[in-house]
C-alpha cells in the first residue's frame, strides 16, 4: 500500500475514478450502457484574479470541438 507510486502523480479521487472507469468498461453490455452515464462529466472551470474571470477550460475536452470558450 505505502509503496504505491500513483500518489505522486494524482489524487485519490482521480485514482478511484480511473478504477471506476475500468470497472464500467468490464461490465456486460446492457449494464455498461447504464453505468457509463454515471461516469459522465462536462465540467468547465475558470480561474479568477482580482474580480476578473479567466478563460473557461473544459476538464475533459468534448470530442471534435474546440475546448476553451473565453468569457
Amino acid at each position, binding site marked *: 500500500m505505502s509503496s504505491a507510486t500513483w500518489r505522486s502523480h494524482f*489524487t*485519490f479521487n482521480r485514482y478511484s475514478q480511473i478504477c471506476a472507469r475500468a470497472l464500467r468498461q468490464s461490465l456486460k453490455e446492457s449494464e455498461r450502457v447504464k453505468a457509463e452515464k454515471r461516469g459522465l462529466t462536462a465540467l468547465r472551470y475558470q480561474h479568477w484574479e482580482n474580480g476578473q474571470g479567466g478563460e473557461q477550460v473544459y476538464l475533459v475536452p468534448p470530442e471534435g470541438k474546440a475546448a476553451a470558450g473565453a468569457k
Partner: protein
Amino acid sequence: MLARRTLACVGSQPSVLGAAPTNARNMATLRELELRLKSVRNIEKITKSMKMIASTKLNKAQRAMNSGKQYGAANAELFQNSPSEEPAKRKLFVVVSSDKGLCGGVHSSVSKATRRVMAEQKDLDPESPVMVIGDKSKAQLSRVLPKNMTLSFNQIGRDVPTFADAAGVTDLILKSGVEYDSITIVYNKFVSAISYEAATIDVVTENALKASSGFKAYEMEDDVTKDVAEFALANAIYAALVEGHACEISARRNAMDNASKNASDMINSLQLQYNRGRQAAITNELVDIITGAFHLVISDILH
C-alpha cells in the same frame, strides 16, 4: 346627445382607421388587447410545459438525492470523532448552485447565505477564498465579493450530478493551491417538495485532522490521511450537488406552477375586457347606423 351624435356621423364612416375618435380608440385598444391575449396564451403554454418537465425530473432527482446523501453521511462519523481543535480563521467557501434560471430564489438563497456566514463569524479572514459552482450564483457573488472569488465551475446540473463531477471539482480545488484552514460548503437543503433552505456542511482538512486529538485513535498513516481528506471533500461536495439539484428542480416546478396560474388569471381578465370592448364597438356602430337611417327616413317623410 342625439344632435351631437348626428353631427359626428354625417361626415364619418365607421372603419378600421376610424375618423370618429371613440371608434378609433376602441379599435386600437382592441388590437392591443388581442395581441396581449395571444402572447399571454403562449406564455401560459410554455410555463405549463416547463412545469410538466420539472415534475417528471423531480422523481429521478429525489431518488438520486436520497442515495447521494449517504455519501455525505459517511463523513459524519469521522468528523464527529475528530473535531477540530482551533476555530478556523481562513475558510474556503464552496457555493453550490447551477447555470439555469427560472427556478425561483434558489441561487440568491445560496449567495445570501454565503454573505451571511461570512459576516457572522467575527474572526474570519476577510480574504477567505470563495469558489462557485454554477453561473447564476457566480454572477451574483462576483459583484458582491470580487476579491474573494478564486475559481468557478459551470456545466453542472443539466442532468443529475455525478460523482465524477464532484471528484473533478475536488481535484481542481486541491490543485489550485489555495490556502485555507477548513472548508464550508453552502448549498440548498431539501426540506420538502415545496420548500428548501440554505445550509452549510463543514469539511475538515488534512492538517486539521492530523492536529486533532481524536484522530490519533485511528492510527492512520500520513498517505492514507491525505486520501481520506480528499475523498471526504469529494463526498461532501457530491451530497451537496445532488441535494441542490433536487431543490432547484422542485423550485422550478413551483415557480412555473405559479406562473401558469397567474397567466391563466390574466387570460381570464383580458378575455373579459376584450369581449366588453368588442361588444361596445359593435353597439356603437349599430347606434351610428340606426341614427343615420332614422334621420334619412325622417327627412324623407318631411320633404
